[in-house]
C-alpha cells in the first residue's frame, strides 16, 4: 500500500464511520423522549439543583459519575420519600454515620431534586441495574422463615436496616435490636408512628400495615439479640 492510499483510507474510512454514527444519533434523539416520562417544570428545576450541588462529584447516575457514593438512578424506589427529603436537608441529623455533608439544600430544592430523581427512576435503561442474582437464588433455596421474617422482607425493611451485615445502612443496624430493652408493644407503637417515640426519626410510619403483621414483626425483632 502506498502512503497516499493509506492516507485516503484513513480520511474516507473515518468519514464513513462518522456518517453512520450521525445517522444512529439522529435516530436515538428521535427515540429518547419516548423512553422516559414527560419532563415537568419541577423535574427540570431538579436537574439544575443536581448540577448546582455537583452531586455527580460523589454519586453516579445512570451508572456515570464519581463512584464515591451510591448510584442515584433507582434511589426513590429503594428509600421512602420522606426519609430522602429529610436526609438531603441534613444527612447526619438522620444518619450520624452518613458520609454526606450538609450542603444547605432547601426544602424546595429537595422537593425538586426528588422530582428529578423520580423521573430518572422511570427511564427505560434496558433493564439496568439488574436484580442481584445471588440474593434471588438464596431466597429461593433459603431456610423456612417465620411470619415476622416474611413481614420484614415484604415491607422492604432491609432497604434501610441491616441484620448481620445484610441490608442497608441508612437506618440503625437491627442485629441486636432485641437487646435494647424495648418490648414488642413498644415496637408496634414505633412501627405505627416512629415520631411518637422519637421526634427526630426519618423513618416512615407503617400504620397502614395490618396490626397482626406488625405484632409478628415486633415478635421477630425482640428475638434479635
Amino acid at each position, binding site marked *: 500500500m502506498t502512503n497516499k492510499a493509506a492516507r485516503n483510507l484513513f480520511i474516507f474510512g473515518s468519514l464513513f464511520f462518522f456518517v453512520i454514527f450521525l445517522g444512529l444519533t439522529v435516530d*436515538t434523539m428521535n427515540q429518547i423522549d419516548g423512553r422516559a416520562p414527560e419532563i415537568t417544570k419541577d423535574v427540570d428545576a431538579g436537574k439544575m439543583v443536581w448540577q448546582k450541588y455537583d452531586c455527580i462529584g460523589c454519586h453516579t447516575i*445512570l451508572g*456515570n459519575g464519581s463512584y464515591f457514593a451510591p448510584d442515584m438512578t433507582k434511589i426513590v424506589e429503594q428509600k421512602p420519600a420522606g426519609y430522602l427529603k429529610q436526609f438531603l436537608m441534613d444527612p447526619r441529623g438522620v444518619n450520624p454515620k452518613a458520609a454526606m455533608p450538609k450542603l444547605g439544600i432547601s426544602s424546595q430544592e429537595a422537593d425538586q431534586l426528588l422530582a428529578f430523581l423520580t423521573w430518572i427512576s422511570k427511564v427505560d435503561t434496558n433493564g439496568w441495574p439488574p436484580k*442481584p442474582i445471588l440474593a434471588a437464588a438464596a431466597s429461593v433455596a433459603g431456610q423456612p422463615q417465620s411470619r415476622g421474617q416474611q413481614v420484614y422482607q415484604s415491607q422492604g425493611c432491609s432497604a434501610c436496616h441491616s441484620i448481620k451485615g445484610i441490608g442497608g445502612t441508612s437506618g440503625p443496624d437491627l442485629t441486636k435490636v432485641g437487646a435494647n430493652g424495648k418490648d414488642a408493644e413498644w415496637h408496634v407503637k414505633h412501627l405505627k408512628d416512629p415520631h411518637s417515640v422519637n421526634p427526630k426519626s426519618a423513618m416512615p410510619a407503617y400504620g397502614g400495615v395490618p396490626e397482626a403483621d406488625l405484632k409478628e414483626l415486633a415478635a421477630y425483632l425482640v428475638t434479635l439479640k
Partner: protein
Amino acid sequence: MTVKYQSQKIAQYFYTFAIVLFLVQVLVGIIAAVQFINPDIFILNFNTIRTLHINALVVWLLAGLMGATYYVVPEESETEVWSLPLAKLQFWATVAAIGAVVLGYIWMGLDPQANKTVMGTQLLNEGREYIEAPRWADALIVVSVLLFLFNMFMTMLKTKKWTGIQGVLLGGLVFLALMYLPGMFYTKNMIKDQFWWWWVIHLWVEGSWEVIAGALLAFMLMKTIGAKREVLEKWMYIEVGFVLFTGILGTGHHYYFIGTPSYWKWVGGIFSSLEPVPLLLMVWDAFRTTREARNVTNKAGLFYTVAHAIFNFVGAGLWGIIHTLPQVNQWTHGTQITTAHGHLAFYGAYVLLVISMIYVTMPAIRGVTTYNQSRAYLAFWWMTISMVFIVLTITGAGMVQVYMERLMGLDYEAVKTVYNMWFWIIRAIFGVGFLIGTAIFVYDFFKIGKEPAPALAPAEQKA
C-alpha cells in the same frame, strides 16, 4: 543538538504549566484516596477534590499536547512559528482562565451556595463530570484553542510542507476542538445530556487524543531512532485510521444503559471490542522500529516512547475490553472497575505520551545532546510500579463490589466501608509512591541539560 527554530522553545512554557498541574493532580489524588477511608479528613469535600483531580489531569495533558505541537509544527514546516507574541498571549490567557476556574471550584467547595445560577447556567461549577468548568470558562477555552490552531495553521501555510505527521496532528487537534462543542449547551433531558456528554469524553480520549498520540508516536520514533519517515507515516495512517473506525462507533459502549435504544448494545459491543487492535498495532510499530535502532543518544526518550505504546495498549486496550461487552458491563457499569480502567488508560495513553514528548524534545530546547538520564528511569519505575499497584487494588475493590453489591445485593456503603477498606488503604500508600515518582520527574524536568552530562562512549559520540 539544539532547536532549529528559536520559537520552538515556547513549548517549554506549556510543559512547565503542565508539570505544575500534574503535581497538583497527584497531590489532590492522594487526598481523595484518603477520603475513601475518612471522608472528613480535609476542609474541601470529596466532590471538589475529585473535580480538581480530573480537571487538572485534562488541562495538563492538553497543555502538554499544545506544547508538543508548538515544537513539532515548526520542525515539520521548517520555519518559525507564525506569531510568537500570539503564542505567548495564548499561553498566559490560558493560565489566567484556568486559574480563575480553579479558584471558582475551591470557592464553591467552601460555600456550595456560591454556585449561583446566572442566565440559566451555574456560575462556578456546571456539575457535569470532567466538563465542570462553567459556561464562561468554556467560551474562554474555545477562544484559546482557536488562537492556538490559527497560529499553527498559519505556520504551516508559510512553507506549505504538508507532512503526514503534522497533517494528522492538526487533524486530531481540530477534531478535539470540535468535540468540545457538544458539551456546551444545556439539555433538560438527562438522557440527552449524557448522550452528548459522551461525545466530548469518549470522542476525546478514544478518538481525537489517540489520533494525536499516533502522530506524536511517529514523530518520536523518527527523532529518537532516525527511522524512515515514509514507513512511519504509512503505519501511522493505518493506526489512526483503525482508531477512528473502531472508536467512533465504539462510543456505543456508553449507550447501553443510560436510556438510549438497545441497538447500541450491538454497535458498542462489536466496535469497542475492536478498539484495542490499533493500540496493539502501535506497540508492534514501536517494537519493529526500535529493532532497527542504531546509535540512539536519547535512550530515555525512546524508553518512554516504547513504554507509552505498551501501557496505552494495556490500560486503554486490555483494561477496557474486559468490561466492554454489554453482558459483562451490566454488572460492572458504575463500579470501581471503571475507575481502575480510567487510571491505567490515562496513565498509559496520555501521561506517558506527554512525558515522552518532554524527554524527546527538552534536550534540544535546552541546547544539549546528552543529559543525565538516570533520574528519568528512576521516575518511570516509581510512577509505573505505583500506578500498576493502584490499578490492581482498585480492580480488586471493583471485583469485590461487583460480587457483593451487584450479585449478592449487599448495601453500597457496607461494601465500601467494610469489605473494601484494605484496598483503599493500600491504594493510598501506592499513591504516595506515585507522588515520589512525580516529584523525581518534576525535579528532573528543571535539571535536564543544566548539569554536566556523563561522558559518552566513542560510538555514541558520532551520533
